[in-house]
């Protein structure tokens, strides 16, 4: 076991990890932040996406032991102040989900997109979530939700 410190959603977490534990595993199983989902554990579904210094990564492919130097954002960090992020609000209003399992990963990926490009075209959105699967096939309304989230974030 190796002691590390993870900086997640602005909070420092002291945790002992084994070298082969993924960041996703530690976030979920050791820190109880289960909003980050693990569907495939091999970087093919996108459910486990988190932000490292603002950039989206599949946390199932990152080693926890190597993640101490980043500012990590999980879905729990988006409404930490009790107020929903514009994307979260938009996903609710536009029905950007069915079972909801892919939703945290989609929203995290969309946040990374909007932080870089506040006025994304539809193709930009589809490319930003291109590595994410929604087995319920909700893509149509996920795209609409992200478009609406962008509008809310821009204040119109």
């Amino acid at each position, binding site marked *: 076991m190796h002691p590390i410190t993870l900086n997640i959603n602005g909070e420092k977490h002291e945790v002992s990890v084994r070298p082969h534990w993924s960041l996703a595993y530690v976030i979920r199983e050791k820190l109880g932040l289960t909003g980050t989902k693990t569907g495939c554990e091999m970087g093919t579904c996108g459910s486990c996406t988190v932000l490292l210094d603002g950039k989206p990564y599949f946390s199932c492919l990152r080693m926890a032991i190597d993640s101490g130097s980043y500012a990590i954002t999980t879905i729990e960090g988006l409404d930490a102040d009790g107020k929903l992020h514009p994307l979260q609000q938009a*996903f609710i209003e536009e029905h950007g989900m069915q*079972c909801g399992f892919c939703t945290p990963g989609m929203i995290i990926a969309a946040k990374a997109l909007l932080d870089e490009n506040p006025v994304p075209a539809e193709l930009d959105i589809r490319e930003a979530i291109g590595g994410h699967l929604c087995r*319920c096939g*909700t893509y149509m309304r996920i795209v609409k939700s992200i478009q609406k989230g962008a509008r809310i974030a821009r204040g119109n």
Partner: protein
Amino acid sequence: MGAETTVVGRSLPLIDAREKVTGRLKYAGDLPPLHRMHHAKVLRSPYAHARVVSIDTSKAEALPGVSAVLTHKDDITGRKKTCNTPWVDPSFNFRGPMISEEVCYVGDEVAVVSAVDEDTAKQALRLIEVEYEEMPAVFDLEQSMQTGAPQVHPWGPNALEPSLFQWGDIEAGFRESDHIIENRITLGNQQHAPLDRNACIAEWDGDCLSIWTSTQALFWIRDAVTDFFELSPNKVRVHSTPTGGSFGLWWGNNFMFLAIAVARKARRPVRLVLTRDEVQTTVKRRERPLIDARIGIKADGTMVSQSYRHIMDNGAYGNKFDPYQSVADIYTTPHGRAEFIGVATNLLPAGCMRGVGDLTLAYAIEQTVDMAAEKINMDPVEFRLKNHWRSGDICHTSQEVLFAKLLFNKEPQVALTSSGLEECIRKGAGKFGWKEKWKGWGTPSSVEGIKVRGVGVGISTHISGLAFFGFNGITIKVNPDGTMVLTTGIGRMGQGGDTTQAMVAAEVLGVELGDVNVVDGDSEVCGHTMVTFGSNGMHMVARATKAAAEDARRQILEFAARRLEANPDDLDIRDKRIFVKGSPDIGVTLKELMSSPIYEYLSPPEVIGRASRGVEFDKAGKMMICDYAEVEIDTRTAQMRVVKFVAYHDSGTIVNPAICENQVAGGYCQSLGMAMTEHLVFDEESGAILNPNFMDYKILGPLDMPDPEIYFEQVYDEDGPFGAKGIGEGVTCAVPVAISNAVYNAIGVRLHPPITPDKIMRALRQKSR
């Protein structure tokens, strides 16, 4: 037609949307650990068929941190194969003993270990020494049916007793026909492939058991567990959490029983989480069909006779023997025959997946019908308009007829309650631009250089629940402030059933959706709903919900009548206020009524509405589906893409349009996956699945297809709550055949899903020879 509604018909957000967007919704794998909880892992068979000659677990048991090892020697066997009804196999993948010394497919369970953590459990698995004696295995459907074929599992023959339906005089019908069209089809092995990996947590307290698992089958699992472990239902409490997709996968499964058994042996709570590989290769897949279709038509296109022999691959432990629905009834003919045969193979068990038989048989029917239309050079849309099923027509091949026969030895008639199929076909053709795109048989809809386009149509139908799914029990409790709590056994697998049930209650009780809390997924608290399947939520469960709400409403009005000194029949509720019809100024708010004492009792009222409703099976409410597809094929690379897709569906009244649109879009996406890419590949030598992950089993993503155009023909169904019928499963049924028919129009070759570029390339080469 229905009265004006204030809640029903609006795209209100899902009641659990906030939990979903914040990541706070707990699927089974997200539940916090229980005190003293251990973690389980499963040792699985590398052979498709073998006997465990010896198994030595001593080294595993000696590993520090291991609390229990379970093998076939523990000899846990359910009392009986099924419950008291012919169709209810609680686990739906019955395998005799929970762990057998005879393993019947690659991935079958050999041993289970529980340990202090997953790493230790995995390490312990490697210390178990097993000696297998390989047995002959069979993977091919037709080979499995032959005499002398290896017996797949230790009980019963490989082929189950056929289910047979006949009406009219089938041979006379073919003699009367001017043309007879014969066709044989098969489809790929689709897997449900939900993103979530399921978990089961089991905890024993003496002889009382609690489990937590993601499932759409709360009471089915409760009954299976009581059966397997010989417990009274009042000793078993099942908590069904939402599922991260299910599509028919998360019913009962042996992995849940394994968690329960190993927890009992370990004398601790145990959690078993499946890996992605296990989700794909050890639970279930869609039955792979082999269908021989024969259709007889007159020269003018009138269908006279139809015959189908539908063989389905059940894998090692599936037990399908019935038609599932009433699929052969898309077309009305005086003569017909449909035969269904379930056959075992030494492959991953197969069973229901979204759309089930309606998808497989509709594929066979709709392709053969296309061939019939071509035979007489008739527009395929016109052919369908001439022959399709209509309201009041008889369901000849209903599963319910089969069960009435099995249980009561009677052969009753089942009739269709309503149908907007004709409108779906006609209006769909208009939206799609069929007349402009259809250039006749043998002519693609367009050719531009190396790119050819083709168009296709497919129709289907699907049940909205069936009578034998059982009674549904619902309660609605009204709180002192006029808010409410609705309890239901309905599953939460992404279909929004909790939201739409609450909408029905809110509509009846004159409150807002936000006033209704839904409590679900607790077998001790919620009324019975056997399984949420067969699209039973909106047409069948909602009847009980509506009746429970009406019961609560009656009680509210009686209390209000006492207070307002009026007759309850003269009162109405709207906007959370009870008032005298005709004199709306005289009234009382629901909150005031529910929180103020009544003189005689010196207490405020208590209102609990309740209802238990079954449905009679003689009237079948079915959803109607017509899908139009246009595909483009690059004749140089054999790549195919969908250009346009129009889905025109009749699900009766649409209770929540956004939820229903998502259902249709999702069915399109999944079934398009089946049509183009999704296929579990079994190794021909070993029977092992070669693509147990999302890298090699290709699910369509956000860049892989255009959005579908979705339309609803809202035909009011007199038997449905507010006129509603089901939707969730039917949305998948006509997609693969619409695509396949469009491919035929483009390149002139009939191909079966998955229609991959290599198949297209071979077809193009053969054609050009």
